[in-house]
Structure formats: structure tokens, C-alpha cells
């Protein structure tokens, strides 16, 4: 085989593999839409499940996922942005900083089920929050932290250093510079990271298994110390734990979960695109 032939063969093969990898992503999305579409109705979004969950809607699970996502936001955003500011603006290049980075990479790598174990041991039992929205949100919040820290740090670092130099030279303090010059310009990037992180949290099942998720609970939670249903766990329950479950409801539930997560991802992508277009430096 000549070099030119091998170039041709390689091009064809590489392209073919790329198609093999990317095509299924389309297929998965299209298939779930096609199968789940017919289950969607007003009732599906506004009613609790009835009759052994084989009828009715998803209201408690949708709201539960919403509450958990909000709780995750509260638990992770302040700490995440604080850590990002520290790493981008304050951290000296020393041992401690390298240790922090190592910790963040490892936090990102810990399996979600291990976060679930930690949530059970620390929040549910040790702090005595019980299986509750509070315990679940904190668990999901810790899991989301690495995503928020790393995207926010990147956003802060992308603000040109001239902005800081000018601000400091005008007599502003370090914090005033960060607060008034750096953060406003980094905000869109930080938001993108937050939304991406939250979309992951919304779809997670393993961390909420022992910390908050209820098998079947038609009433809505009244406080952060209550259990709640959640969409990902609900999908697990109705597809594997409940015999005789209509397939249509299963696909419908998968579709609703996918829609929530993809909408968040889409919002994040749009924010990022607008930000790149608007950027003046």
C-alpha cells in the first residue's frame, strides 16, 4: 500500500468511526422523544402518580427534582465561587495550592455512589438530618463543587490582566478590583459552569438513593427535613421495581428527565455563545 493509499484508507476509517460514535447520540435522543412523546399530557405534569404508579403523573417527582436542584445550588455556589476566586486571584504557586488542585481533581473523580455513602454517614446519620431534602442537597452540592470551581476559575482567569492593573493603579484594593472589575466580566462564564453543574446534579440517582429519595410519596414535601420523590430515582423505580408498568409511562418519564437536563445544558451553551460574541477583548 502506498502512502497515498494509506492516507485515503485512514481518512475513510477515521470518518467512519466518528460517525459510529456520534450517530448513536442522535439515535438515543430521537428514540426517547419518539417513544415518550405520546405520554406527555397536562395530567402527566400536574398530577401525582396513581394506582401503583401505573397511572397519573409525575408532579411530586418533578417538584422534588426542582427542590433538590435549588438546594444543590444553595449548597455549592457560594463555596464554589469562593474557591474559584481563591485559586484564580489569590493562590500562590506553592504546595498548598497544588494540594487544593489535587483535591478538586479527586473530588471530581469520586464515584457518585461513594458521595451517597458519605451523605448517609455524615448528613443523614451523624448530623441527624435524616433522609431529607437537606441531606440530599448537601450531598449533591459537594458532588457539583468541582465543576463549578473549575469553570468559574477558567472564567475568572479569562478576564484580561490589564483590567486588574488599571483598577489597582487607580487605588482600588484587591477585593474592590475583584468585586467591581473581574467578577462582572467573568459572570457569564461562571453562570455557564453553574448551570452545567446543576444539570448534572438534576440527573443523578446514586447520591440521592440513601439520602433523600422516596419510593412513592404523593404528598409534596413541607420542609427541608422531609423526604421527596425525584425524577431519576422514579425512573429507576418504575422501570425495574414495579412489575406491569406501562412502557409508555417509563419512556415519558425518561423524556421529561431528559428535557429538564437538556434544557439546562442548552441554556448554558447559549449563555456561553452570547458571551463569546459580546466579548470586547
Amino acid at each position: 500500500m502506498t502512502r497515498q493509499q494509506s492516507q485515503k484508507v485512514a481518512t475513510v476509517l477515521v470518518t467512519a468511526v466518528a460517525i459510529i460514535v456520534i450517530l448513536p447520540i442522535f439515535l438515543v435522543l430521537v428514540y426517547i422523544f419518539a417513544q415518550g412523546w405520546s405520554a406527555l399530557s397536562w395530567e402527566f405534569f400536574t398530577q401525582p402518580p396513581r394506582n401503583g404508579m401505573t397511572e397519573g403523573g409525575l408532579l411530586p417527582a418533578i417538584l422534588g427534582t426542582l427542590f433538590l436542584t435549588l438546594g444543590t445550588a444553595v449548597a455549592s455556589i457560594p463555596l464554589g465561587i469562593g474557591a474559584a476566586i481563591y485559586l484564580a486571584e489569590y493562590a500562590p504557586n506553592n504546595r498548598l495550592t497544588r494540594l487544593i488542585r489535587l483535591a478538586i481533581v479527586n473530588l471530581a473523580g469520586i464515584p457518585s455512589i461513594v458521595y451517597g455513602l458519605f451523605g448517609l454517614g455524615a448528613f443523614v446519620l451523624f448530623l441527624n438530618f435524616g433522609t431529607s431534602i437537606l441531606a440530599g442537597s448537601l450531598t449533591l452540592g459537594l458532588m457539583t463543587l468541582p465543576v463549578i470551581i473549575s469553570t468559574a476559575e477558567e472564567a475568572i482567569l479569562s478576564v484580561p490582566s490589564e483590567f486588574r492593573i488599571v483598577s489597582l493603579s487607580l487605588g482600588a484594593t484587591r477585593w474592590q478590583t475583584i468585586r467591581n472589575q473581574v467578577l462582572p466580566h467573568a459572570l457569564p462564564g461562571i453562570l455557564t459552569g453553574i448551570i452545567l453543574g446543576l444539570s448534572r446534579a438534576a440527573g443523578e440517582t446514586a447520591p440521592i438513593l440513601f439520602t433523600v429519595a422516596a419510593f412513592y410519596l404523593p404528598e409534596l414535601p413541607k420542609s427541608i427535613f422531609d423526604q421527596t420523590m425525584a425524577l431519576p430515582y422514579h425512573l429507576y423505580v418504575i422501570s425495574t421495581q414495579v412489575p406491569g408498568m406501562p412502557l409508555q409511562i417509563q419512556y415519558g418519564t425518561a423524556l421529561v428527565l431528559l428535557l429538564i437536563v437538556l434544557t439546562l445544558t442548552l441554556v448554558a451553551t447559549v449563555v456561553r455563545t452570547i458571551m463569546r460574541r459580546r466579548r470586547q477583548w
Partner: protein
Amino acid sequence: MTTSKAENGRNLKEAIIEGLIWFSGISAILIIALIFIFLLKEGAPAFVNVPISSLLGRRWYPIEDLFGLLPLLIGSLLVTVGAVVIAVPLGLITAVYLGEFAPTWQRELLKPLIEVLAGIPSIVLGFLGWVVLAPLVQNMGASTGLTAFTGALILAYMSLPTIISITEDALYAVPNEYRDGALAIGATQWQTIWRVVLPAARSGIVIAVMLGIGRAIGETMAVMMVTGNAANIPSWRTGLFFQPVRTMTATIAAEMGEVAQGSVHYSVLFGIGIVLFLITFAINSLATRFVSGGDGRATRRRAQL
């Protein structure tokens, strides 16, 4: 020089804020330490109360106090190895396509699509594996569709975004002069990629593979749904990958809900958590070592996946 009251107040306020920022910064270290401490607190009794010989046994049968971890370790190993064997070549080649062959418009379209794949909840992929993929695998001739192979397929798919993005970053970091130089002395594009670009991106590719492994070994829900969850050691004769297995992660997820808090079974499940923590910690710390000069961009990229 005298400072005014207002300035003093501002200094104090800023000192507090900067203190809080510093605390947020080191919180990552505290959190990972706390996670390990709590796993140890709940899981350590397992290694005291259950003899090591029993933990290394071949039978996982908690009702009879048989806590042999071997089937679970082998289950995790099979599924992960299967996933890596499928995902690494596919992921590397796709990254080469995106980084070296694809025109810009395709890249702009496909990269967000791969992010979408990374964003699909594992439970949704597990669900599809359960209702669509498992019956297909069964039709291939296995006695059941819920096998290590089915799990490996789903896991491969789930670890692709990690492998693709990190490899692509590594390819992107190879200076264009390398490519120009190779092309200028008459190499074809493929020869340039194969002999020059890929070797130059080697360390990044190693990281991509390691993190893909880390992702695969920690996956829980999808694997639990499609591997059949039988805690036995598959034999060579009947096709190693075409039997039900049970992973460490799935064991925790499936059994923790039913055990009494503080029981031996409970602490053994936390013990499995310790094993998982240590494995992923080793993989991620080792991968960090491969980044020359340490931290920076590559580290952040990884934390986002």
C-alpha cells in the same frame, strides 16, 4: 499617616471577605478528608469484624454472613475492561477526526453534541440499556441480555465524552509547527498524525484513558440495571463477558437500602466504598502526575467532565 474610620471599617470588611475566600479555597481539601474519614468511620469495622480470608472469599452471600468481595471485584473489573477496550479506540479516533480531519463547521456542531452525551443522565442510558440493548444482546445468543458485555457497552458509551474531550485537548496542544514540519518534508496527513502528532500528545492520551477508566469503574445506576446483578464469578467456558455479573458500585446501591445501620453487612458496604474511593483516588492522582508542570488548564478541564 492616619486612617479614617470608614477606611478601617472597609479594611475589616475586606479582611473578613478574603478570609472567607481563603476558607473556600482550602475547603476542597477538608471535604475530601471528611469523605475519607466518614467512610473509614462506618467501614473500618468491616475489616475488623470480618476475617480477611472471608473478605477474599469467592462467595458474596450476606444472609449467611459470607462477604467474599472477589465476585464483586471481578464484576467491576470485567465491565471496566470491556468498556475500556471498546471506548479507547473509538474515543481516540473520534478525537483525531474532530481535531485533525473535521472542517470547522463540523467541529462547532459536534463538540456541543458530545457535551450533550456527557449530560445525558446515567439512569436514562441505563433505562435504554434495560429496555432496548439487553434484548438485542440476548438475541445475539446469550442466555440473558443482562451481562457484563451489556454493561461494558453502556459504560463505553458513557466514558466516550471524557476520552474524546481530553484527547482532543491534548491534540490541540501539539504545536502546528510539528505538523507543518512533517508535511513539508513530504509526509502525508495520516503519516503526520500517526508518527508526529499522536506521539507528541502521548501524555494527554494516557490521561484520557486513565480518566475514562476512573469514570467507568465508578458508574453505578446504568451498570446496576443492565448487568444482571448476579454475584458470581463468571467462568471462561460459558463466555466470560456473556454472563450476569455484579459490580462493587451496584452492590452498594442495591443493598444499602435494606441493611440495618451498624450491622456487619452495613459496614462491609462502606468498606466497598473505601475500596472504590482508594481506586479512583489512585487513578486521578496518578493522572495528575502525567501533566507536566502540574496543574493549570488540564486539571480544570478534568474536573469539568
